[in-house]
């Protein structure tokens, strides 16, 4: 019994790659998830939230309010025009835009409402909630007291027109002190009415959680399936069928192209089945834009199969395929948004996410089922383009490596 155990341990440690992956893989995943959920451990490192602001009012007052917002450590203001800001939100690049409408200064002085508007993407409900709570409190601190004071004082004066000037001045002073005290504590009733909110990208029948779950899981599982391609190429090599294919008049590259085609077809079938299942079981409205769905399925399958083809061309042994693919897929899925939504991750991880197939695939499916973009919408097509580009690059690299690694059968 102990002899067998010793022999197995000896075999295990003899496989240096296996040993490395055994420890490296969980360490990598722990690192990724820790970074994604909790940052690097120190709680005081909260990053500022980017707030896109449009100043339609253009007065000294609106500019000073914006400057005060920008000086807050939890908010980083990004000033732009209304059109640009709305485009960013619609494209999904930004979550919301805060608009200071024309007449903002007058409305604050008059104590009326509605001159500040927050237009947002309803798909980012969680982020908007966090932003709103930070925003309202701070806006109240900056402009709330003045606005409220004007409103209360004018109502008071209208109600008691005959009061003597000394008493009136004392009461006005009292109102001012009370309002500034309440503003410093962070809130009072009716604060929310200072900002009107409008969903620029509206909430649809498809829950964003469902789209996230279906698209994220589908792409991650697709990546695992295409690793089978890498293994199948090795099987062909080990069983001699690759050599036999090379005896035939086929061009050697045709072998790889053939694998690409079959993998693409299987990948597309797999994705379609997963979406059909989600439609039937979870009620995802897959019928709403079939052409976009098919295009996105094709683009995602092409990019994922490119990964599989690259793996097939790169790997020299089955253990390499398994080890490398597991590490890459889990990493890409973790920071690409398959496991947790990208918006929950730290800023640097959100930037890294764009190199993964998962990110563009998930965002593309969001465009179809959440943002309800049309087939011809440039925002949607740009994601398709990125996926096709990724697939193309991966396939071209694979082609170069295929000759070097796989066709070397001597």
């Amino acid at each position, binding site marked *: 019994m102990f002899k067998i155990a010793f022999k197995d341990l000896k075999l295990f440690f003899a496989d240096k790659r296996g040993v490395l992956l055994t420890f490296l893989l969980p360490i990598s995943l722990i690192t990724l998830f820790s970074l994604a959920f909790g940052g690097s451990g120190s709680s005081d490192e909260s990053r500022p939230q980017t707030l896109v602001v449009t100043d339609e009012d253009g007065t000294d007052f609106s500019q000073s309010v914006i400057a005060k917002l920008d000086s807050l450590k939890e908010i980083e203001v990004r000033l732009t025009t209304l059109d640009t800001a709305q485009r960013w939100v619609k494209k999904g690049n930004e979550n919301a835009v805060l608009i200071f409408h024309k007449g903002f200064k007058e409305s604050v002085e008059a104590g009326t409402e509605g001159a500040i508007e927050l237009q947002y993407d309803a798909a980012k409900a969680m982020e908007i909630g966090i932003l709103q709570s930070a925003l309202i409190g701070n806006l109240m601190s900056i402009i709330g007291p003045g606005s409220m004071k004007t409103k209360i004082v004018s109502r008071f004066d209208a109600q008691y027109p005959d009061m003597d000037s000394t008493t009136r001045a004392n009461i006005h002073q009292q109102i001012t002190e009370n309002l500034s005290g309440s503003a410093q504590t962070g809130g009072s009733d009716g604060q929310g009415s200072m900002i009107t909110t409008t969903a620029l990208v509206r909430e649809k029948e498809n829950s964003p959680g469902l789209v996230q779950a279906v698209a994220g899981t589908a792409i991650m599982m697709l990546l695992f399936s295409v690793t089978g391609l890498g293994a199948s190429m090795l099987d062909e090599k080990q*069983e*001699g069928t690759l*050599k036999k294919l*090379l005896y*035939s008049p086929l061009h050697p590259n045709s072998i790889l192209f053939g694998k690409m085609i079959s993998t693409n077809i299987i990948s597309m079938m797999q994705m379609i089945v997963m979406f059909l299942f989600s439609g039937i079981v979870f009620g995802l409205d897959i019928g709403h834009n079939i052409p976009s769905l098919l295009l996105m399925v094709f683009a995602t399958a092409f990019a994922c199969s490119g990964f599989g083809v690259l793996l097939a061309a790169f790997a020299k042994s089955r253990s390499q395929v398994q080890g490398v693919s597991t590490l890459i897929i889990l990493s890409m899925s973790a920071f690409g948004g398959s496991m947790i939504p990208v918006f929950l991750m730290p800023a640097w991880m959100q930037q890294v996410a764009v190199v993964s197939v998962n990110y563009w695939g998930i965002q593309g499916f969001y465009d179809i089922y959440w943002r309800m973009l049309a087939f011809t919408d440039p925002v949607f097509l740009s994601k398709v383009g990125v996926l096709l580009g990724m697939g193309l690059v991966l396939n071209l690299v694979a082609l170069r490596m295929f000759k070097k690694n796989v066709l070397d059968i001597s």
Partner: protein
Amino acid sequence: MIQVQHLTKSYGSVLALNDVSFHIRQGEFFGLLGPNGAGKTTTISIMSTIVAPDKGSVTIAGHDLVKEPTLCKRNIGVVPQEIALYNELSAYDNLLFWGSLYGVPSAELKKRIDTTLDLFGLFDRRNDKVKTYSGGMKRRINIASALLHQPKVLFMDEPTVGIDPQSRNLIFEVVEKLHKQGMTIVYTTHYMEEAERFCDRIAIIDKGQIIAQGSLEELKSSSKIKECISVTFRELQQESSRKLATLLEGDFNITDGTLSYNTSNVRSDLSKIILKCSEAGTEVAHIDIKKVNLETIFLNLTGKQLRD
């Protein structure tokens, strides 16, 4: 049909082929024999276009291997040593796939598959998955898959390794039939009886060089040895064996308690051997005198058994 000239190939610092030249005539059954690592597989790999030579040239059916590889490939069929089939597919589907790679029209290909399956005695099992086949049946399908495009030249790399006698006999029948039909066959084997039975000409390769080539009769007549004296002992102690080896002179070896002595003069050498055996203190059980065969020629030329 095949011209091989000054073929040289190295793998790193290892010289696998060193200035190898030979030719194979149309319709000829050509045997390529050599011990393991001699360069047979490298030669076959170059002739079947999957390995590029460092130097030298090969033409097949008038086409240069490097300049016109596709035309060469259309003229050759390769039966690799390993069974290269898709186990999860049926025999019929395997043949359909491999045949389709050579551009045989579908209807014609299907006819050829039926004929070939019949030829190899596997028509009744054509729809069974290959994984359910015995080793011999798989070998037969492996050969069949190289014949569907009706190549002019067939390379067969040890096609009968590890199979049952029934399958071997069936393969022999098919190979002889193909030869009679005029197909040029290049055959490598470890079995001397196969080479002796089929080959019109034989090339013996060792350490990357052709050390002899010709018909079996030519090889025999050019050999210095004519006969082999085989002595079996009742019991051969290690010490006696060592002593006998020091006493004997000439071309001999002692393995598994048997002395094999190659000679061109049996009459004079036989008495000397008996005397030396007696001096070494051994007791002879049996003496056999064999005419020279391919095995002894091979052993004499390479110093190795063919199965080494």
